[in-house]
């Protein structure tokens, strides 16, 4: 009988689980650690990428399209007038306030630093740098100490001060590819990693290479930009558009003195 098998199975699992937790799972994991040493060889199979964004300030029209695109794609709940009055709205893609007298439209997502200070200070490894260079945040792991917010020189991290709330509490419009964040965790731009994942999955299922053309407008902000001011791609690939743009004499990075080496590169206005 299948049911009995299942029951036995689950009972066995329960016992195994109890045994494992009681024994500290020492043995099993030492084996795992050995398995891990074989990893780099396996990883070299697929070339690792260095994802980056180039934002051309000369093109940005400051329309705000990228902001809404990001919120829509990543299930960022609107704060509402009250929370907004207490400066608690969440904008993974934000605009840096211009200095007096200047236009200076500066859309500012997470910088995805090569040397991210936020990652170093996380006590539980909730935030980490992916092999492709995305500074990611695993919401489930986060304990909400907000140390990463303190450490980020760009102030690009957001804390969920209260439960997210969508108009009418209707979750129909939520993107199923992105988990909504509960109260008490820090969230941030993920470079739309789920879109990258979906694109590379599709490319592999269709057995086609993932070209730079397919990548350029992949994140929601880049896709939505009416002036194509935002370009996405692999900075390590010398033939990619981002790599080319990053070599422009106009290229600048924010707060170089912080030593974070951002992978979001700005192209200055003018000339």
């Amino acid at each position, binding site marked *: 009988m299948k049911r009995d098998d299942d029951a036995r199975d689950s009972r066995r699992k329960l016992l195994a689980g109890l045994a494992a937790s009681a024994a500290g*799972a*020492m043995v099993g*994991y*030492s084996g795992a*650690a050995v398995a*891990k040493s074989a*990893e*780099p060889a396996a990883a070299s199979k697929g070339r690792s990428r260095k994802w980056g964004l180039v934002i051309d300030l000369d093109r940005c029209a400051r329309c705000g399209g990228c902001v809404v695109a990001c919120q829509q794609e990543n299930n960022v709940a609107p704060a509402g007038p009250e*929370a907004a009055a*207490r*400066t*608690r*709205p*969440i904008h993974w893609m934000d605009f*840096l*306030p*211009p*200095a007096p007298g200047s236009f200076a439209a500066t859309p*500012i997502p997470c910088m995805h630093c090569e040397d991210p*200070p936020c990652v*170093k*200070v*996380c*006590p*539980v*490894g*909730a935030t*980490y*740098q992916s*092999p492709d260079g995305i500074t990611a945040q695993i919401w489930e*792991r*986060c*304990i*909400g*100490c*907000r*140390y990463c*917010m*303190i*450490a*980020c*020189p*760009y*102030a*690009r*991290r957001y*804390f*969920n*001060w*209260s*439960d997210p709330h969508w108009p009418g509490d209707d979750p129909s419009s939520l993107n199923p590819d992105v988990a909504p964040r509960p*109260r*008490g965790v*820090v969230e941030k731009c993920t470079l739309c990693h789920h879109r990258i994942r979906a694109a590379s999955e599709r490319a592999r299922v269709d057995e086609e290479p993932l070209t730079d053309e397919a990548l350029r407008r992949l994140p929601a902000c880049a896709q939505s930009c009416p002036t194509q001011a935002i370009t996405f791609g692999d900075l390590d690939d010398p033939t990619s558009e981002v790599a080319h743009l990053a070599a422009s004499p106009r290229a600048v990075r*924010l*707060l170089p*003195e*912080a*030593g*974070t080496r951002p992978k979001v590169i700005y192209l200055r206005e003018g000339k």
Partner: protein
Amino acid sequence: MKRAAIVVLTALVTIGAYAWVQQVVHGEAVADLRTIGAGGAVWGLYVVGDGFFASAALAGLALACVLRVRRSRETESAARMALPLGVAGLVASLGCVLADLGRPMAAMVNLPLFGRPRSPFFGTFTLVAGASLLATVVHLGLASRPQWAERPQTAWLWRSLACGWKETASARWRRERVDFWLSLALLPLFLGGIVILGIVFGVRAGRPGWQGGFEVVTFVVSGGAAGCSLLALATRAPTRANVLRLLGVLTSLTVLLVVAGEILALRTPYSSVQRYARALLDGPYRNLYWAELVLFFLAAIMSLVTWRKTASGIWSAITALLVCAAVFIERFLVLVAWQTHGLGLSWPAGTYHPTLIEWSVFAGLAAAAALVFRLLVKICAAGTATSDPTDPPPAGRRLRSLTTAACLILGFAAASVGLALSAGLASAPLLDPILPGSPLVFLAGLFLMLLAPVACELIPDRDSPLYESSGGVPATTK
């Protein structure tokens, strides 16, 4: 009078608990903490409280360790008071951290499982709050055993906690030795703790490669002042004078450090640091900044004057409270002003005014600490002076030495392994410890090491008469 104080403290704790429940139900939206860069501070009163309580407790404990190692009779009461004070302070600081966390329950699971020593938070939470608290409790418990053993038979809890303390010469001798070595061994832990705290809160709230290392020194020195002031509050007249003398030196030093730090900050090439320094001098924090300076200055003079005079209770209490207030403000300025006014990009300057909820939780924790202190003083050996161990050591017992050594060695091994396993030796993508739970192993190792003195003391002598018959040690008291 005392009863009234306890009623007030209990009421404060109740209010704090209620406020905390509000925060649990509604999220940290009830606090005035806001998104950094959008015009707020993400760390506020709670973390300031952590910085204050933990540093004061650790400084007090470190001081007590020094006094103990010096075995000075006059300062013995101060050294004794430091233990309950330390426990109370560390409990409050732990409470502050937990109140600040967005998901305290997740923290309870994820920190022991995946804690990463690279994070300064790991240092503050496990070493400072966890290990120091544990060490202090062990210290206090061992020191209190003689007192607990005197309780009547019916008090089973106390009797069992005393673990069969017998007032023998060898036991007392061992007590003294353990006390000495424990103090010596814990001194680096406490000193290290306060320095870690200083780095966490002093280096411009942890931003790497940025200006402001000067604040670390200020943080440590003013932490010492806070610890001293609490000790001065808790100790009686003859000892207090010594403490006040030290307090005078530390507060004077702090004044100098604060001023020097500000001048340095104004002269750095970094605009963010300058913004921060201006915010203190004549910006929104000017009242607090000048109040801090005046308080420190006043306290320095008063502690020196009071010490010269009779070290009168009221005056030294006032001095101590002034220092506490000044140190608290110093912590607030280092932490909060940096977040609201020290941003490198053109984000707008922020504000932070703690809400009633935050104040209530904070006050509740402070009151809880006071109650814990009160309780510990009541039940632990707060004032017992020990004898002078002039006698030669008795013949040891093999089991004891072995167990103690085993605890130390195994504990050290486990702590090292735990630290190594959790210290990011894993491959790059998974920054998790190689073994989930290795932070727990690290903590267990620390715990095991702290069990060494316990083992040393608890493993009973063979029949005492044996000793007497051998004529090795005179068993009688003086």
